[in-house]
């Protein structure tokens, strides 16, 4: 299989969906003439022109609300947030309008919109640019949230998200844009990854590491070290999508290994990992040989210092230490 960069996998997804459905538009700050702040949309404006690839002013509430309104009329906007940290500027539109319109109208309206862009830190951009809000948005019924870790997954999930009739928030990661991986060839058919289906990225028998987004790569690194240095065979379950959540896959892996460490780059307090801990205790408590443990971002705003930023994140070292407490 050919290898693609994560950013190019997203671009390929956008390009294919632009070709498939003339209602799809790509919108956001710098997505058109500038070619995308992260070069995700590079070349799309040249190919599709002003009507389909739209530069907006720095006006998150304005343009995201506009996308939501347009989606009610059947346009299918894919909105780039330059950083998911800027969700706060458009929060009203994201949670009061996109999430609620279908419900408040008794199903008469719906919002087939995609919000995408990088979440998370890791690039020493400080507290205002490092938010990791997937758990926040997953808390709002009406929204769907995913956080793909690999180029193949981001392509497949992005295409699914664009075809979905509900608002889907795709949380990417700046540090993933430059990662490479195999992506099925378009010649071999439409590559779609369903929302709500987790994926076992590494089979194992001794302990389950459950992660999403970039944490999946950190968990995989940790798993290799655990195997080679400690003889512990860890399974890595990639959630891919936070809501819908593949509850069965979580329960299955716990039943298989009986031990679990959750790896979650968001904060521990009321975060995704807190939700999964609850799920496990409600549905798989009898299968646990040890308490559920978590490795999250340390519970403080994201530190700038590039020297220690990685210490705040769930890095392989912290994952391994946590696993060893359960061994």
């Amino acid at each position, binding site marked *: 299989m050919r290898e693609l960069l994560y950013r190019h996998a997203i671009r390929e997804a956008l390009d294919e969906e632009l070709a498939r459905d003339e209602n799809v538009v790509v919108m956001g700050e710098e997505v058109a003439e500038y070619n995308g702040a992260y070069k995700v949309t590079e070349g799309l404006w040249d190919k599709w022109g002003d009507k389909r690839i739209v530069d907006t002013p720095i006006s998150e509430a304005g343009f995201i609300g506009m996308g939501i*309104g347009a989606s*009610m009329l059947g346009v299918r906007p894919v909105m780039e947030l330059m950083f998911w940290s800027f969700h706060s500027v458009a929060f009203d539109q994201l949670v009061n309008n996109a999430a609620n319109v279908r419900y408040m*109208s008794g199903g008469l309206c719906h919002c087939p919109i995609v919000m995408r862009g990088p979440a998370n830190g890791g690039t020493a951009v400080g507290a205002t640019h490092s938010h990791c809000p997937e758990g926040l948005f997953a808390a709002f019924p009406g929204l769907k949230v995913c956080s793909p870790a690999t180029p193949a997954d981001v392509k497949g999930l992005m295409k699914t998200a664009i075809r979905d009739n509900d608002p889907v928030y795709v949380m990417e990661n700046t540090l993933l844009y430059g990662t490479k991986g195999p992506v099925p060839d378009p010649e071999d058919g439409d590559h779609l990854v369903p929302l709500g289906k987790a994926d076992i990225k590494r089979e194992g028998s001794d302990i389950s590491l459950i992660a999403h987004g970039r944490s999946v790569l950190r968990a995989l690194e940790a798993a290799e070290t655990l195997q080679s240095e400690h003889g512990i065979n860890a399974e890595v379950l990639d959630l891919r999508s936070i809501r819908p959540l593949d509850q069965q896959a979580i329960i299955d892996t716990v039943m298989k290994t009986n031990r679990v460490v959750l790896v979650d780059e968001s904060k521990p307090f009321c975060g995704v990992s807190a939700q999964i801990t609850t*799920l496990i205790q409600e549905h798989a408590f009898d299968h646990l040989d040890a308490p559920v443990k978590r490795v999250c971002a340390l519970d403080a705003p994201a530190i700038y210092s590039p020297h220690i930023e990685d210490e705040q994140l769930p890095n392989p070292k912290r994952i391994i230490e946590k696993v060893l407490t359960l061994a």
Partner: protein
Amino acid sequence: MPPTPALKDYAQADVNRSLTPEDKIHFFREMARIRRFEQTALKHYNGGKMGGFLHLYIGQESVAVGTVSLCGEHDHVITAYRCHGHALAVGMEMNPCMAELFGKATGASKGKGGSMHLFDPENNFWGGHGIVGGQTPLGLGLAYGVKYKNQEGCCLCYLGDGAVNQGAFHESLNIAALFELPVVYVIENNGYSMGTSQTRSSAYKHCLAQRAEAYDMEWDVVNGEDLYEVRAKTQIAMERAKKESKPTVLEIDTYRYYGHSVADANAKKYRTPEEINQYRAHHDPLRLWRRRLVEEGVLTEEQADAIDKEAKQEANASATFAIESPAPEVAEIFDDVYWETDNNTEAANTGRHFFND
């Protein structure tokens, strides 16, 4: 209140000259229906039959009826929480509207939206939104959709005089002008946002619509008590939207007779009784229109009474319908959250969207 411009008779404006007597009577009937609907709703709200808020539109009827009367096939309407008038004006039936206020399964939104969230996409009516100013970017999006689909149409987006100070509105104006979107922002200036008078909420007190100049956008001020003027000036704005794809801000002076909502404990404190009585007695759009039609010989007093009576009966019948309708089933709480859950896909069967269990 900003000064109303020199009085001019807009009956002779093109858009009004072509009106038939039936059209004019229709406007009277629509205004009477809104008024009677609201009065009936008030009665039952006070009787403890409804939840939450009830934002009455009484006093502002000419705005919804006048502006919506100009809408064609590809024109869209979106508004805030004071939405009953717009809902009826676009053609929603009283029964689903009233039942929605009562929170019944037969309500327009199956009892999920309530008074502030009426919707009717079949009539191009997109709500009913509860966040002050939050609907203004959505209106932009509806206009965007119309333009994207190469339709000749526009969006009428209503907001209050309080909403003009929300950032979302300013962002919307900028984008509307920048992208040349066919949207008409209709500020229904009833003088107050809840208990705060317009002069206490806007730094530039003289005029709200003039802010459009900062965005290189056309604007106008309209005397809302005169249906002819509302139609004449709105028509110019809608033409501008449709023919030139240019946005407009219209500020329509109007007045609400009741408190901000019926639950407004201070309804009688921030406005003097004299002020309210003055508006009721001399500026009531429904009575002024009625008088006008009688003067024009279009309508007799008896006919007007009969129309009003019918409206009252219709409103009462809608209340009976609402009272007799069933409440939603508890299980319906989970309907209409996700499209695919209601459309029976694989994810629907596994119920993976909900975190309750």
